[in-house]
């Protein structure tokens, strides 16, 4: 029996950057084991967490993600020996930078999920989705994308209407 599908007012968009050897296989296992997890997550597969450039996370937020997950092999299990060790340092620093810029780190999750941990994948994705759902949409980067330097701004009927309604 599938649990009844709940409907929510806000469905967050979650982007997951995962390594192909562990977490992707783990997510696959969750699927083949018919475990349920939120369909909010969009999975992007990389060779290794070491390949996941911090700028990808930035780009995900800019393109409308409400939450981002980065997941790969447990330390010591990297297919390329040390890719995840490098990633661990890089992300430890990058999250501090985002925090300093003013991004709420509750929207960004890192995890180690092995090929055998279908259950952990479900747990990580569900936790992040529900947490981000409670926080509401990530508006900062979207609003930013709409903004113009004053000199390039033009009067649009929509803007005028918005202005008039204030």
């Amino acid at each position, binding site marked *: 029996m599938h649990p009844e599908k709940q409907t929510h007012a806000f469905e967050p968009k979650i982007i997951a950057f995962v390594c192909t050897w562990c977490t992707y296989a783990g997510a696959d296992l969750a699927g083949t084991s018919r475990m349920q997890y939120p369909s909010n997550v969009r999975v992007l597969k990389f060779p290794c967490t070491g390949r996941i450039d911090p700028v990808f996370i930035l780009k995900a937020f800019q393109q409308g993600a409400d939450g981002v997950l980065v997941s790969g092999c447990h330390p010591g299990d990297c297919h390329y020996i040390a890719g995840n*060790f*490098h990633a661990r340092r890089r992300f430890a620093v990058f999250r501090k930078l985002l925090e300093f810029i*003013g991004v709420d780190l509750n929207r960004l999750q890192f995890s180690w999920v092995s090929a055998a941990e279908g259950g952990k994948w479900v747990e990580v994705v569900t936790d992040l989705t529900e947490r981000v759902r409670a926080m509401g949409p990530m508006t900062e980067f979207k609003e930013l994308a709409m903004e113009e330097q004053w000199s390039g701004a033009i009067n649009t009927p929509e803007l005028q209407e918005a202005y008039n309604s204030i």
Partner: protein
Amino acid sequence: MTPIDTSIYAAITDAIQTEAGRILSEGQVTAVVGYAAARRKGSAQPIVISNPDDAQKLIFTAACVNNLAVYLTKAKKEIPKTGKIGIVVKGCDLKALSGLMGESQLKREDLYLIGVPCAGVLGSTVQPATELTTGTIAAKCTECDAHLPTGCDFVPNQTPITPELEQKYAVEIARLEALTPAERWAYWQEQFSKCIKCYACRQVCPFCFCEQCLCDRNKPQMVETTPRPAGNTAWHIVRAMHLAGRCAGCAECERVCPMDIPLNLLNRKMAKELKELYDHEASFEVLDKGPLTMFTDKDDQSFIK
């Protein structure tokens, strides 16, 4: 505002002139990169000399703000890199050279280092004739631990008098850290909105030596190249990240910003985190690997599920 004693700079100027003249005429170096006076009263600008007679043009004053290490990188093709090159360095500049050596961009044996005992330089040279005081000194100098460069080929025998100053970045970082994420976001958006993408911050940075910057690429375009708030924010995040663990703290990015964006705050924040996380600090020591190109199996992973 109390004046800061820069009386030793006159003797340092003499010593630099003599030394530069000597190494050029003895043929020890092919060129010397240093500072020279410019048209406006009190101003200084970088100069490259190859004739011993030009050594008398060299000066050192509180307006000698530039980090000359930038001219030795592969990005600055105008400065010939043939033979041994002499360079005038303050402590902060020497840290940058050490970083470049660690990244295999320079070889120590190709350099003749003329170190400068430094009491501090001006924060802004918009009005170069300004006197050096506790108010006009560069913010980086308030936190300086490198007044006396070591490991150089020549350092004038002078000792700078360096008063204890309020650490400007530490204070400002603490203030920002105490804010909520939304308040910090608002603070940085106000600052980044002024950015016009002149890339002065990148061009003066000794560590921005890439042949082509990621942020100049348009296929794929990872960062909006236009100077709009979105692209500006992305650029400054990427810049800070690419310098994390590499930045030597010369604060040139912040000094040259025509829009007064406090860019070195981001670099200082990153340096603080790297110190706490991996006990890394920019120094005169040449490291084989920077903190983000190495790892240990005990690195903190409390943030990873």
